[in-house]
């Protein structure tokens, strides 16, 4: 496991504890924003991983929304 993955897991667990979909969305967007300069600088490994994390955060946000949707 790479250090990037470890940071991702820590953040994911922290967010899962709060279960606020907006926060997941925000972090997902931040990942994509961070990936832009990294791709420009050809730092591909981290940039690629940031896009994976972004998708994971968006997916988590959608799942939480869907659970909330069922409750409503």
């Amino acid at each position: 496991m790479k250090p990037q993955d470890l940071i991702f897991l820590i953040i994911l667990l922290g967010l899962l504890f709060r279960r606020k979909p907006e926060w997941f969305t925000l972090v997902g967007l931040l990942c994509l924003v961070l990936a832009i300069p990294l791709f420009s600088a050809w730092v591909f490994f981290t940039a690629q991983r940031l896009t994976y994390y972004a998708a994971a955060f968006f997916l988590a946000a959608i799942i939480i929304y869907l659970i909330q949707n069922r409750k409503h």
Partner: protein
Amino acid sequence: MLNLLLGDFRFFWPENIKFFAHVPYAWDSSLNTGIGISSINTIWITSFLNLTSFFSYLGIPWFIINLVFWIIPALLIAFLGAFFLFRNIISKNIVYSLLSGIIFTTNTYFLTIFLGGQQGVAFAYALMPLVFLTFINLLRNTNLRSSIIFSLALSLQLLFDPRFFLLTLGSLFFYSLLQSEFFKKHLLYVVITPLLIVFLLHSYWIIPLILFKPAFLPQGFDSLSGLKFFSFALFENTISLLHPNWPENIFGKTYFMRPEFLIIPILAFVSLFFIDLKNKKEILQSRVILFFALLGLAGVFLAKGTNEPFGRVFEWLFENIPGFSLFRDPTKFYSLIALSYSILIPYSLFNFSVFLKRKISHKILIGAFLIFWIFSLRLIFISDIFQIRKVPESYVRLKDFIVEQNEFFRTLWIPEWQRYGYFSDINPAIGRYELLKSGSASAMIQELNMEESQELFSNLSVRYVIVPQDSEGEIFLSDRKYDDQKYKDAVNGLEEIPWLKKVETFGKIVVFEAPDFKDRFWSPNDNLQIDYKFINPTRYKLNIKNAEINERIVFAEGYDQNWIAKSSNLNVSSSEFNKMNSFVLPKTGNYVLEIYYGPQKWVHIGLVISSITLALIIMSLARSKLKK
């Protein structure tokens, strides 16, 4: 003579387009092969070509038919479908609806397939929002009329590409589940009627496909190595709706990630901020946004194929889900991303503007987005992927040379057939790797030098061997650039083959003649007299004189056991003779035979069913319109 140079899209001459203006046939004599193959599993794909080819009888050139019936409709349907889908499910705001149409029609995926000449795929993609729209209408007004309209849209999409049809059906299924409406409504109108209508309308190819069960996928199509090879897109490409071959669309040539495209998913997934499940007025729209966000993520994950992350998932699906091997080229899943983002991005921009309490006006926001969008597509303006070309005069002269002879023979193209090379059911062109399997001209020439080659090509009615003029730089290549030496080597190699004689040169096209070539029907016995009449690619009439007992008639088309020779007292299936068809005559004497391709009977029966279904649908829609 002009041609829109669109990658895979075909060019037709006024003389050969008429050969394809007919009802769909289960046998392909010349369109995709030079030696004839069963087309049972591809009838759907040529149906629209068959239909539009009829306009050639009005004297309309292919260039115009192409433009009016293929290019413009695909663009219009894609744009208007997305426009009305957004209007219908998100907002009536015209500007944002237009934005939806622009995103769906001008993203790098659609432009790549469209400009790459994959017109059937482009049409099927273009129909996705329209099918969604008719389905949403069906869920809202569940009645027979809505069900029929949805079925028609779905049927039209199936006509162009079954893979997009399956993708759309799958998406609609999940949409229904998420909307919790699926099981509440009548299954009769939402599921049974549409599937029945689709089956009936397409019965002209579905029935023969079921009855004759040809190998649906080409050999090796479902290999895992092939799948890995075709997984061109990386995750960063798919999430950014950036086609890996953009902009040049050279097969297999991918590029470094263009970071500006990451703004696209940022704009799309900002939409998740505006979901409000507590507000009763907003809840339905929020569910729609959740669906499209999920659809987009599913597309992102699948379109990358076997690449990371979790590439094994796609491999598992490919190996274990029946029919999933149809998606050997995973980029088809880009269509889900495009559909998703074409809804999410305008929704995000609209809500962003509202969120900022209109401190930034809509105009500025949309203007900024359009500038970014055009900037992201800037390479299209400097590349040469969209061109109108004049067909070289040399190909016009070659076409005239072939047509003027007005008799059956085949041409063999070394190393491969060129897009302007003339072909028809009377003069099929071999050169699409159906006979010579080698990849290079030099290896092919070695094959031609083999002892049995002259007899093989003579039996297959090959009269001319042609080296093409590579006017578009697609054939004689080294490092993807035209290499004149390769062309010269091909010409020199053929000049050394003793049974070939150089007879004509048209520009850089060199024509060699094989002096001894046989007709479409022939017999090893020279005393046998055979007269035949070509009715269509699936039917011939033969008059045979002086046949002896167990005489063999060879039919020089690719072997298929479903070819049948029939007369009043004879019904014989084809038997293989050197990879061709042949029929053994049981008695001495004269024969009047009909040679026909068996599955075509079922195509005709299916066409009757399809026509009756279509007529009933039109009558039913007209009746309900009159009632209104």
